[in-house]
């Protein structure tokens, strides 16, 4: 059985990637998961500089989901390269670095630094963090902004460039197209949905940042639809995510058009989820006589049925 998938020039040993911001810098999980067994590890969004992020409360649970407004607390790219990358390298993780900037120059600078560092497999451009104004969302909500930041980064790196798209737009597929046109190797989607919860007793938002990003199973059907739409618009691979909690969900994203998937919130609930997902996918492939997992990608069958009846 062949679980490898290809993202541009990069080969992942399986389609399962730990989603950015949901797996620390990866090293936190080294005792729980064999990092080398994952298709990839997308580390927490990095700016050039260190950041403290938003005051707590930073998360709140919602029906089948959660909001977060961490505010991209982080150690900055230099400390990441010095303090975390060596261990990730030693553990043979396939490291995808999620980068955030306020200006195109910052993305370019981050890309340069990380291209020179040893052990970075790909760059995921976070142009979709809904929680901070300066987190690239202005790029992510504008087609030319998306195009410009991707092209600029494209010029300075040979690493696969993977812009991460926001779902908070009317037509996500047009953003995937802009990214493709600008030379992206793949696109990641979705980041979180802008949302809020109000404590009715105090009439105050439950998050210090007022709004936050919704993730988890609640958003899965919207995310699957978006992957499906993008699949029809672009040829580059799609890294699909949003509420994946079981092997079945990962397979659903692949059938909708994702070449690989990321798992965030569900790994909070079950940090030991990874081998379970791999097992579940393998069992499915066996049951359906699928030799290569990549044969699943985009194989949704949308023939309309005249049939009125569910079973028969």
């Amino acid at each position, binding site marked *: 059985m062949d679980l490898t998938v290809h993202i541009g020039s990069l080969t992942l040993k399986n389609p399962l990637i730990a989603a950015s*911001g*949901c797996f*620390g810098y990866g090293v936190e999980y080294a005792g729980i998961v064999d990092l080398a067994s994952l298709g990839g590890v997308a580390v927490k969004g990095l700016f050039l500089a260190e950041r*403290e*992020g938003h005051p707590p409360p*930073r*998360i709140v649970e919602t029906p089948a989901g*959660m909001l*977060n407004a961490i505010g991209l607390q982080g150690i900055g790219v230099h400390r990441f390269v010095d303090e975390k990358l060596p261990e990730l390298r030693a553990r043979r993780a396939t490291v995808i670095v999620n980068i955030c900037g306020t200006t195109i120059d910052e993305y370019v600078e981050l890309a340069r630094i990380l291209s020179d560092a040893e052990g970075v497999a790909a760059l995921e451009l976070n142009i979709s963090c809904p929680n901070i104004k300066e987190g690239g969302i202005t790029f992510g909500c504008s087609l030319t902004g998306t195009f410009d930041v991707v092209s600029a980064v494209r010029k300075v790196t040979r690493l696969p460039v993977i812009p991460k798209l926001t779902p908070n737009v009317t037509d996500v597929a047009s953003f995937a197209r802009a990214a493709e046109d600008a030379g992206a190797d793949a696109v990641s989607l979705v980041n979180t949905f802008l949302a809020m919860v109000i404590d009715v007793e105090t009439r105050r938002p439950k998050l210090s940042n007022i709004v936050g990003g919704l993730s988890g199973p609640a958003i899965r059907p919207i995310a699957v639809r978006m992957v499906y739409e993008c699949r029809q618009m672009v040829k580059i691979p799609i890294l699909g995510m949003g509420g994946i909690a079981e092997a079945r969900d990962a397979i659903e994203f692949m059938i909708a058009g994702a070449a690989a998937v990321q798992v965030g919130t569900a790994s909070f609930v079950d940090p030991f989820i990874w081998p379970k997902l791999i097992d579940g996918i393998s069992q499915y492939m066996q049951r359906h006589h699928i030799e290569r997992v990549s044969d699943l990608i985009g194989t949704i069958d949308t023939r309309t049925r005249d049939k009125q009846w569910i079973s028969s």
Partner: protein
Amino acid sequence: MPIDVVADVMANRRLSSDYNVLALAAPAIAAAASPGQFVMIRPGRSHDPLLRRPFSVFEVLRDQHGAPTGISLLNKRVGVSTGLIYTAQAGERVDCLGPLGRPFSLVDPPAQAWMVAGGVGLAPFAALAEALCGRGTTAVLFYGARTAAELFYLDVFRALGVELVLTTEDGSLGEHGRIVAPLERRLSSQRTDRPVMVYACGPEGMLAATARTAARHGRACQISVERIMGCGLGGCYSCVVPMRSDDGRFHYVRSCIEGPVLAGDQIQWD
């Protein structure tokens, strides 16, 4: 390394209309846990509620030979998951991940251990008291609650030889008022050459007051903080606590991996 077990509920003892003690079969976690550590609990299997919830290890349960069989949780019903834990029945199964976090550091005689608990903040102290008394350390429990009916396990602490100082907000047992008052008095009267370690767990106002009081009296203080935790493993950065930085500012640390026990004088209370 933490482990994740599908733990059978061995017993559920109701203490009041809001509090209960849930006994979970989890020998490996029980064997590995140190006082002050916590577990992440998921009482159902649906996506609502979604995330696990953090709970202190209350007691380490043992069989007649002293071998660990499981742990118990002291649970206070405040919302969805604590509600499910309150109503859980023997035979149900609960996902239990742990032990997690940095435990208390213990003190040896002649140092005394003063534990300060507010409400459900009692949770980490049963295990701590057992460990302390086991090494002969003199222990005092300052324990405040709303009312007498919510002061639990007093006999257990007494049996260990722990001195009890109690307060209730309605004056129904012990001193009338908050627990920091008797703590403050006792700190004032304690000779400074007699070493004391203060341990505290409870509502944040109480923690801040305890930390300040301890600092004012030059006593070290270990605070077990309670933050909303998404993962318990350092993955999500939801559980941060502001700690003083050298430059007079603060920085956030993840209380799930650098805590939940933190040095009271280093926390930025504001």
